């Protein structure tokens, strides 16, 4: 495909399409309206939007929260696959690399399901086949009996070396958090390697990777501080951007909050992240902090998409915005199902 491209046309075409798609995502007012609806009203409401096909298809087999959950997952997977089909040349490589993070999520979901002895059908409902491991491979994995067999079935895949090394200790300890961390670290390391291989447009992709790593690291620091983690946290840092391993550990072990916020701010120069960190000084709720950070990441990605309109940025901005639309709708539906008040649900929405 890359060899047959002539001129900038295909890039402009795809970037414009995705910009239009992003404009069609649910606006803030729509979420506000949905906050006052019941679960069935929300289902009906999203049936009138882009989710119509999935809701219609699944309407006979599922109902209530299951219907919404599965319809949203299906829609997201379909959307991501569709984007992979239309992106040209090097943008396809970058999009594919970005989507590999879903492989990590899917494999972890399958492993968790197998560890808890969940039924294959139940596991399948929550998978989002948007990455390199497509529906067929995932189906094969779900059909395996034990977590060890799932790992063996992944032989030859990029995730295999880390899985083979980390799954046995994870199974004996019963916690997959270290495995997840190692997979995420490997994912970012591979992304950086892909970009440094000299592909055209890699610089723009690198900007995104650095932003993503920064936000994830800052989120982790706040989370670990909230948990009063006293152990060594060096293994949890994702290398490749602003924060180094030692610095990460130092920030976590700092006693005073003001001192911590000042040190963190000093590391981020004159960026928007620095300004946001200042506003987090007074916030206590870790959830609010996380949502603020996610919101900043989305704003930054949209800004980058405006600055380089025909690069990977408009595509990534759409993919992330879509991910959080699904995230919001799921939070809304889940909240409504357990009768949470509208104000509580609103705190969980990224809008």
């Amino acid at each position, binding site marked *: 495909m890359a060899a047959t491209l002539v001129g900038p046309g295909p890039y402009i*075409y795809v970037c414009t399409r995705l910009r239009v*798609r992003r404009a069609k995502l649910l606006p803030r007012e729509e979420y506000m309206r949905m906050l006052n609806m019941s679960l069935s009203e929300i289902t009906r409401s999203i049936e009138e939007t882009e989710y119509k096909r999935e809701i219609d298809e699944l309407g006979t087999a599922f109902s209530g929260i299951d219907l919404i959950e599965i319809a949203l997952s299906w829609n997201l997977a379909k959307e991501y696959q569709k984007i992979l089909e239309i992106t040209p040349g090097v943008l396809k490589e970058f999009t594919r690399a970005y989507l590999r993070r879903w492989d990590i999520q899917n494999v972890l979901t399958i492993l968790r399901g197998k560890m808890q002895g969940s039924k294959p059908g139940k596991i399948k409902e929550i998978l989002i086949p948007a990455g390199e491991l497509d529906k067929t491979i995932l189906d094969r994995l779900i059909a395996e009996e034990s977590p060890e067999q799932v790992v063996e079935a992944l032989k030859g895949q990029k995730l295999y070396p880390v899985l083979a090394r980390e799954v046995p200790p994870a199974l004996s300890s019963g916690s997959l958090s270290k495995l997840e961390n190692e997979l995420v670290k490997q994912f970012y390391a591979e992304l950086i390697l892909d970009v440094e291989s000299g592909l055209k447009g890699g610089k723009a992709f690198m900007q995104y990777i650095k932003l993503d790593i920064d936000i994830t690291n800052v989120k982790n620091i706040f989370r670990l501080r909230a948990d009063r983690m006293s152990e060594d946290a060096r293994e949890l840092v994702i290398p490749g951007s602003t924060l180094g391993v030692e610095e990460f550990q130092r920030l976590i072990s700092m006693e005073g909050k003001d001192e911590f916020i000042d040190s963190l701010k000093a590391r981020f120069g004159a960026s928007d992240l620095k300004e946001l960190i200042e506003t987090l000084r007074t916030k206590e709720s870790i959830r609010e902090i996380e949502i603020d950070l996610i919101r900043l990441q989305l704003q930054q990605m949209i800004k980058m998409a405006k600055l380089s309109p025909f690069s990977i940025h408009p595509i990534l901005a759409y993919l992330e915005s879509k991910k959080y639309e699904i995230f919001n709708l799921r939070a809304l539906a889940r909240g409504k199902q357990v009768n949470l008040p509208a104000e509580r649900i609103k705190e969980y929405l990224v809008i």
Partner: protein
Amino acid sequence: MADVATAVVAGEMTVEMVQASQIGMKAMAAAIAVGSTGIASGIAETAIGSAAVGATAENKDVFGLVLLLTVIPETIVIFGLVVALLLLF
């Protein structure tokens, strides 16, 4: 023909030769005016056309508007054509 060549080499040109040369130059200038503006319009329309098709693929309602935007660079070639016609007539 040999006479013309001798005349040019000697620096002597007849009125007929000068007139013929002027007509040739005008024709060449007109060709450059239309040709180069045509290419320029093409380049400008590449980006607009791609974006227009992309936008229409997602939202059919904008077709009329983007069609109009796509043909705006045609004005460049019309300017070229006008200049060419002025040169020739």
